[in-house]
């Protein structure tokens, strides 16, 4: 296979990134490792959301539904029924995928498009949050708590451990998701998605199985997001309907890929690298000056500045300057 100059640069960049990420724990303390784990988690969800919105062009503002269901699935199965978290990851991916298929099938069948589809996804997520808040099986508003870790804890069995364990686990998960999405984008599925994104009616006329392709995008995206939710539950140790299923979660999940650059493979990772630290710094700022709300003010203003300066996201700009892109490779969806 011929490897062009551009692809060689991309490979070098990817290898560099992976190497630096692999050796970082030797140099950093637990706090920074935890922040970076959150970066990887956010990038992972971003990649998942980006598959659906960035490539297939379907705007979902209710991804918290999949995230929350994944989180609750792994927490309930492993805590209450003693099932290995490794096994619990399967329903944590499949349940959200089924929900996504159901919502997608309803929405797409009835030709709910654009902003209406986005609001439909919000409606289902909020509906689920309220149901969870009143459902005693999932602990109502009191939420669920995982047991404290014992010294005999085996991270590879319980999938819970210290900062270094989560750092590597989430790094690997993110890289795996990135690889899957890179393969998907280059397959005929990826081309079909982009065709639908650019013009749904035209691609249907050309013989693209629009409904099936859109459902596939939703299902894959939801399954990844469910796994991310499962990791969140394992890492956090506690979950509440409002924290994992709420509108705020849906918003947090999608800001990183948009800021990073929609419809690009690296955008979600870059976005997470920018957004998560901003969030952490502004929160620490508010805490150290003990000014309530300062973090939200700083974060909100920064979001406005970033989107004003780089409405296409940051990755296309970075890629141009590092000469890591050709035209087309980084192009996001049109209006």
């Amino acid at each position, binding site marked *: 296979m011929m490897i062009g100059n551009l692809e060689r640069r991309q490979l070098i960049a990817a290898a560099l990134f992976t190497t630096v990420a692999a050796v970082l724990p030797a140099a950093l303390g637990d706090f920074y490792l935890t922040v970076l784990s959150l970066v990887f988690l956010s990038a992972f969800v971003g990649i998942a959301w980006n598959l659906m*919105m960035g490539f297939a062009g379907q*705007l979902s503002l209710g991804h918290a539904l999949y995230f929350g269901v994944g989180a609750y699935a792994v927490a309930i199965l492993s805590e209450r029924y003693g099932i290995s978290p490794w096994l619990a990851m399967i329903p944590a991916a499949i349940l959200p995928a089924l929900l996504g298929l159901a919502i997608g099938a309803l929405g797409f069948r*009835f030709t709910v498009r654009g902003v209406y589809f986005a609001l439909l996804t919000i409606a289902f997520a909020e509906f689920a949050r309220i149901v969870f808040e009143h459902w005693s099986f999932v602990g109502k508003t009191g939420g669920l708590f995982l047991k404290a870790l014992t010294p005999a804890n085996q991270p590879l069995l319980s999938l819970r451990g210290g900062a270094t364990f989560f750092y590597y686990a989430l790094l690997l998960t993110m890289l795996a998701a990135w690889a899957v999405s890179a393969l998907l984008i280059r397959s005929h599925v990826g081309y079909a998605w982009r065709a639908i994104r650019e013009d749904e009616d035209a691609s249907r006329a050309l013989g693209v199985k629009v409904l099936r392709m859109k459902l596939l995008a939703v299902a894959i995206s939801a399954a990844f997001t469910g796994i991310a939710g499962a990791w969140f539950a394992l890492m956090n140790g506690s979950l509440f309907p409002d924290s994992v299923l709420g509108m705020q979660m849906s918003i947090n999940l999608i800001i990183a890929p948009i800021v990073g650059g*929609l419809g690009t493979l690296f955008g979600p990772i870059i976005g997470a690298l920018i957004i998560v630290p901003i969030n952490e710094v502004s929160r620490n700022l508010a805490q150290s000056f003990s000014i309530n*709300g*300062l*973090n*939200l003010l700083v974060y*909100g203003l920064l979001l406005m500045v970033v989107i004003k300066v780089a409405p296409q996201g940051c990755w296309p700009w970075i890629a141009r300057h590092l000469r890591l892109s050709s035209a087309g490779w980084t192009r996001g969806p049109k209006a």
Partner: protein
Amino acid sequence: MTQLYISVVVNGLMIGAIYALVAVGLNIIFGVMRVVNFAHGEMVVIGMYIGYALWKYAGLPPAAAVPVAMVTMFAAGYIFQRLLGNDFVDKPQHVQFVLYIGLALAITGLNAMIFGPDPRGIEAAASFAVYTIGPVRIDASRLHAALAALMLIAALWAWLRFSLTGKAMHAAAENIVGGRAIGLRIPHLFALTSGIGMACAGTAGALIAPLYDTTPYLAGEFTLTAFIIVIIGGLASLPGALLGGLLIGVSEAIAALFIDPSAKSLLSYGLLILVLLLRPNGLMAAGRGPR
């Protein structure tokens, strides 16, 4: 028992009228510019804080806050649109989303910095007055707020329909290029739209300030409620927003009674899902799909 149901429905209709005013604001912004104002609930909360601050620090009655909130929020909306919003009108939805979410978070943060996270409420003398009509007792301050909201909606409807500027806004909503061609000042019209939309939300906030305690974090719920109403009622349809507002007000009141007060919006989301699936353009759609 019937008495209970009647008063629940009447209460729902009254809060529904206020919701309708909030939704009308969202609907005008959406209808003219095709922009979803994700910071709409924040505008309601600012209106509530204006009411609280004027009562607390200037000793003014809650009614005096209504015109103040209206003018302030109109000016804020107009300036925001001229400075920032107009650049985003023709951007993709997700880009607009980040701008308005940023605005929403910044306002929530600012509110928390100024007023703190604790609930702030007005203790007005009128709070306990009631009208008694037959077997039904109606809270006076609630009724006044609802009537004021209905009058404002009617006035706005008339202005949009009969004034030259209102017609120009309709024209801009129909066809921007055509509007430009006949010499409409689109940036000014968009700023007016944004000002009016945010003024609706702010005014509604000032109207309910005597009824509810305010916290910075109420905003998200107002935004979502307004979305539900706009979609149920129909895009770019003012009577639709009114109908949707009343419907949601009643459905919340009923769900609070029969299920749980904290589950009051469960029924609304159910209604929204039904309407989206069966009549995606809303109950009283203006007959126009997404642009």
